[in-house]
């Protein structure tokens, strides 16, 4: 499967996202924040595990995500990862919301 152009596209999107998210993402207002946490544990959790320790999807613990650029994680959430089962969540999440989730995951505050 030739995913070269797609991959380059994702890299560009990641760079763009990186320039946009230098500062900490603000928490969405309730009840949206609770909805997003529910989505994270139940729907992301369908593959990554309810406790986010991994399943068919990779683990999303702070240790597993350590050293990964937040911008590329945000891009993965929004656009999915072609060639893998990771689907694009853009229809259900804004960029700011994805940034907030990545921040929570990397800081271990997703519980």
């Amino acid at each position, binding site marked *: 499967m030739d995913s070269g152009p797609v991959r380059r596209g994702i890299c560009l999107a990641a760079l763009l996202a990186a320039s946009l998210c230098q500062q900490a993402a603000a928490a969405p207002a309730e009840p949206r924040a609770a909805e997003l946490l529910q989505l994270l544990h139940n729907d992301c959790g369908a593959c990554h595990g309810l406790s986010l320790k*991994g*399943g068919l999807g990779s683990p999303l613990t702070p240790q597993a995500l350590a050293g990964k650029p937040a911008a590329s994680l945000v891009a993965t959430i929004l656009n999915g990862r072609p060639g893998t*089962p990771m689907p694009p969540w853009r229809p259900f999440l804004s960029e700011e919301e994805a940034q907030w989730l990545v921040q929570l995951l990397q800081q271990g505050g997703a519980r």
Partner: protein
Amino acid sequence: MAGSTLATGRRTLTRLLAPLLCLALAACASAPLRGTGDLGVVIERASGSVQIVDNSHEQALARVQGLGDLSHASVVFSRDARYAYVFGRDGAISKVDLLTARLVKRVEQASNSIGGAISSDGRVIAAQNYSPGGVKLFDADSLALLASVPAAAGPNGQPSRVVGLADLPGKRFAYALFDADEIDVLDASTPTAPKVQRFQHIGKQPYDGLASGDGRYFIAGLYGEDGLALFDSWHSDAGVRRILAGYGRGRQALPVYKMPHLRGWSIAGDYAFLPAIGQHEVLVADNRSWAQVATVPVLGQPVFVMAEPGGRRVWVNFAFPDNDKVQVIDVPTRQVIKTLQPGRAILHMEFTPRGDAVWLSSRDDNKLVVIDTATLSQRRTLPALEPSGIFFTWRASRMGM
């Protein structure tokens, strides 16, 4: 609102629980006798508990706690249908006594697990693990470890995650390797020294599997390509062949927000009904030639595609964001005849032994919904804490369950 519903649920449960608690704690000589043929187990995924339910009287009998992480849990039953073995995501196997409503044994056998099966003679429990990837065999009575069988390594050098484990006749188990594109058949005739027959290059990324009700066929669904892999245990020399290849017909695959689950009753009469991946369709195959005979368009990505025990209708639930709906397919006409909206996040469906009713779990509404299959109307709801899998004891006497 949800809190008060739950509180009421808990009070009701406590009231219903009282007779069984008496039985459990006092072991009173006058305890009423009962059978287990109409009992079942409901997984309460977030609270690490299971409910024991009675499907004749449509009521909860007890809650058993302390089972750990049940976010992806499955259950098999002892041959006498007294004990449920619950496989938790955290790698634990919990043995629950349905009559006394007690956790009688619990072993932590892996760090990340997905399910298991019981051998045709009822003596061996097999657990399928993601981490470390492989299969472990346990004595069904004591849960003592009998053998550990690491899976072949995937591209990252680690043992592959094991999916789709199902029992076959002759104390065998079949399973697939997500990371290594294999179907393996394990012979547990000597459970301390199992023999494994490997079938390689069966197709890309098998994500789950099922055995046919007669235990002859094992089918693995493939995530990485359009098609499924079929193993015919009557002709194992012929290896594994591809069925329903190219069902997507080159169409762009739609995103899959939850992987389908194959295990369950999907063979209705002469046809097998299987979920497509990345297409909002149920695939229909002839169950002897395995040629595709039809596709049934449905409203979303199917997760479970389950035939009523009589085979007349097939019920389908869906991945996010359509997981509040259930569709019913009429088998002779292969058309959707009803779309139900029974609750939010319908995760599982389980038929009563002869299919007069189907129980649905609604995770986000904290309830179980019992639907009459003759009228397709709701018969009852029962409170449950974020319920997922529902498993009735008829599975104790079925292959591949």
